[in-house]
């Protein structure tokens, strides 16, 4: 079963036949990264032995491509798997709606940047945004936990005081 990437999204799993069908149909390009269990890292479809014939026939390089320098960096630099940078978006939403502190909003903003930066090929920026999203989410939960703890201690003291003052 294969996983493949499209516009910064990790898709799949699909079978070998389905993937070669998508490659023939042009839905998956020979430069798109694919992966299955057992492979050490994501590879462009064209470099995976199972699909070399498919991609060779279906996606010939455009005329003159060899002479023109690449206009943009590849979406995912080699060595970084698609989805290897978690965006923590759902976690930050939970923190925002439940912890009742603006920390979660900061976390959501960072989380929203992760996939955009990834799509632009900015792995360093995506990792930094991912780390910020995580840090702010944890800060929100921690502050909430400490606040609840203080509140509970306060309630116990008040209850004990009421019990002590009553005859």
């Amino acid at each position, binding site marked *: 079963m294969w996983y493949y990437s499209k516009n910064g999204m990790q898709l799949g799993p699909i079978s070998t036949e389905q993937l070669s069908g998508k490659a023939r149909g042009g839905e998956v390009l020979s430069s798109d990264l694919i992966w299955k269990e057992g492979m050490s890292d994501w590879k462009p479809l064209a470099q995976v032995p199972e699909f070399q014939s498919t991609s060779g026939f279906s996606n010939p390089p455009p005329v003159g491509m060899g002479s023109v320098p690449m206009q943009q960096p590849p979406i995912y630099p080699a060595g970084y798997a698609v989805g290897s940078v978690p965006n923590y978006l*759902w*976690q930050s939403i939970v923190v925002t709606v439940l912890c009742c*502190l603006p920390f979660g909003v900061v976390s959501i903003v960072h*989380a*929203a940047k992760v996939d*955009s930066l990834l799509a632009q090929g900015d792995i360093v920026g995506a990792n930094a945004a991912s780390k910020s999203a995580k840090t702010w989410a944890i800060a929100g939960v921690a502050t909430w936990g400490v606040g609840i703890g203080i509140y509970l201690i306060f309630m116990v003291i008040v209850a004990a005081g009421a019990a002590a003052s009553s005859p």
Partner: protein
Amino acid sequence: MHKDRALWVSLGVLALAGGAYALRETGGTGWMPGCAFRKLTGLECPGCGMTRGTYALLHGRVAEAFAFNPVGMILLPLAMVALGIEVMGWVRGKPMPFRLNPGRWGATVVAVVVIVFWIVRNLV
């Protein structure tokens, strides 16, 4: 399939269910500390009303729940489903075939909606 992870997830689900039951049976949220942000600033945060909303929802009053916090009432269940799928993938040791990924535009829309909601609810 990781049995230790499955155990932790089961405990977490039990704690959630216990918490929901406790909230349902306490007779209201008046005894709770409330939102620290609202106490300090007088303004509502994007999450204000979620405890009261959940309390209303647990008593079957859906319209009342949405009145307390419409955006949170939509986003929280979505986030819980999405994280549930991630947790299932974590327990079985590989990602689930279907995952809720909002993508780069979806994530931006969520961020904008939350911030706009935060501003608007303090204006009206």
